[in-house]
């Protein structure tokens, strides 16, 4: 290192640590003030999040768009084929089946979760004894890793040792138990059941919070005006819960529609593709068969559907 540079460096170090020259001082102050300005500070604090989401969410999203218009295989760039992947999918029996499955699955699961969640929330609202433990027990399915609890359900639906079949046989209801995961419509029911089991706590606890926030005076006033239990539920509880319900249903619709874990562990999309959802099909086409272009197109089909769901739900919430 040339001595001049060394000298300068030492001087610089000296000035910051010991006595500072007025020029240096004002420079530091300026820098510090610069970062204190709201504009600058705002951008600085948000930069890490912005960079992260840009590089690992926005960029992969663009990559997915790009893959979906090529005939790429895993690890090999393909050539541009326009919208042919999408076109082929719309003429593919398995994809159409998946599309149907996804709507049936999401629709039934969300409705069941809403109705059962509402019922459970109203019961929890009135629970006084062991309140904490009851709520704790109800929330448990939501906390445990879904992949692992679904293994438990898999065992419960086992073709030979199913605990449900054992019960049905020993109660004398059936002679031979059904093959839950080997029969298309039963497998659908199984997958929906596990999804409801896992999603119910979220509905119940959130709706419960909504119930707690309804002022009790409304009910008392309605009571003195002679409104019955049903009228109070329909004209006070339901309208007051609408905003909470809208948000819960929005979240649940998105995450039910895009579910992967339950189907992957329980049925892998079978039997005969009767339980495939977008995510499991995308995984099968994109990674297991290696057709990443087509797989990306399968995933991306979710996007416009989800955008529409979000749009309508948010418009509904705003209006309320």
């Amino acid at each position, binding site marked *: 290192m040339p001595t001049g540079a060394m000298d300068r460096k030492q001087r610089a170090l000296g000035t910051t640590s010991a006595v500072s020259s007025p020029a240096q001082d004002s420079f530091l102050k300026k820098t510090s003030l610069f970062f*204190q300005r*709201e504009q600058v*500070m*705002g951008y600085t*604090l*948000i930069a*890490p*999040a*912005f960079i*992260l*989401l840009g590089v*690992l*969410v926005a*960029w*992969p*999203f663009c990559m*997915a768009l790009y*893959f979906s218009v090529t005939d790429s295989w895993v690890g090999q760039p393909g050539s541009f084929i326009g919208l042919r992947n999408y076109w082929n999918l719309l003429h593919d029996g398995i994809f159409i089946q998946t599309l149907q499955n996804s709507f049936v699955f999401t629709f039934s699961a969300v409705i069941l979760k809403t109705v*059962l969640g509402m019922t459970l929330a109203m*019961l929890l609202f*009135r629970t006084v004894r062991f309140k904490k433990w009851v*709520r*704790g*027990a*109800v*929330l*448990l399915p939501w*906390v*445990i*890793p*879904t*992949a*692992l*609890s679904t*293994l*438990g*359900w898999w*065992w419960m639906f086992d073709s030979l*040792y199913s*605990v449900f079949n*054992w019960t049905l046989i020993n109660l004398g209801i059936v002679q031979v138990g059904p093959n839950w995961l080997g029969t298309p419509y039963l497998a659908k029911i199984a997958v929906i059941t596990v999804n409801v089991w896992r999603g*119910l706590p*979220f509905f119940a606890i*959130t709706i419960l*919070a*909504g119930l707690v926030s309804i002022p009790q005076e409304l009910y008392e006033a309605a009571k003195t005006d002679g409104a019955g239990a049903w009228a109070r539920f329909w004209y006070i509880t339901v309208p007051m819960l609408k905003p*909470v319900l809208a*948000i*819960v249903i929005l979240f649940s619709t*998105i995450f039910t529609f*895009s*579910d992967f874990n339950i189907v992957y562990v329980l049925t892998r999309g079978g039997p005969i593709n009767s339980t495939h959802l*977008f*995510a499991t099909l995308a*995984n099968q086409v994109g*990674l297991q068969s290696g057709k990443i272009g087509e797989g*990306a197109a399968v*995933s991306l089909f*979710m996007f416009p559907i*989800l955008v529409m769901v979000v749009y309508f739900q948010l418009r509904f919430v705003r209006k309320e």
Partner: protein
Amino acid sequence: MKMRTRKFLGQLFTLHLPLVPFILFALFPFYFMVVTSFKSDGELYDLKAVPFLIQRGATLEHYHLLLADTPFLTWLFNSVLVSVLATGISIVIAILAAYSLARLRFRGAPSFGTAVFITYLVPTTLLFLPLAQVVNRLGLADSVWALILTYPTFLVPFSTWLLLGYFRTIPQEIEECAMVDGCTRFQALIRIVLPVAIPGIVCAVLFAFTISWNEFIYALTFISSTAQKTTTVGVTAELIRGDIFYWGSLMAGAVLGSIPIVLVYVVFMDYYVSGLTQGAIK
């Protein structure tokens, strides 16, 4: 006395009895997993035996097989490593971003807020295919670091959203006082806002940790070597070989893989309940 019995009966039929099926529905799968994991193979695969109970003596053989013959402890270690690091990184990033969005006025702040909310709603299953390619290109394929890097993509939007709601409830005056007394804004954030926001931060940490521990699709698709897997994927993918299922060990793995998160949950139950409702309502 009569009034009390009537009230008791009323409550029994309209409240306690209807709650029973819900609680059974919620807890039975766990009960059954635990029972299965302690049952000897002879009883487990006997169609005449009552599946709900252990009648021929409990056994630890499934747990022994799991711990001695499979890399279960490695998977557990990987899960801890990934969850702790991904949570730590995400919470720091989220605190900065949430503070910035809650307090500072700068051009584009509302759009950033919307962008965070939108990425919060993007399901992981939408992007796993291209993200696997990104991870490959970064040379992180088949390593737990791929997960530590990618988990923040869903933890940061979620935690930012949760903390944003929390920061907004803290009165701005206490910071302004500190700044009048000569604190810089950053010092005010560290010394004044964070201590007040601790309940919110604990909540965000718990949720981020739980979500990382439970994550499945990234861990399944980004990693293929056994030694780099996390618990959820290891138990699900590696314990099933061919057509022979070791149901006892499989259930033992599911139970042991859930216990850490259940312990955290039991200790911090109130935070889970409040965080769940806040995330959705705010």
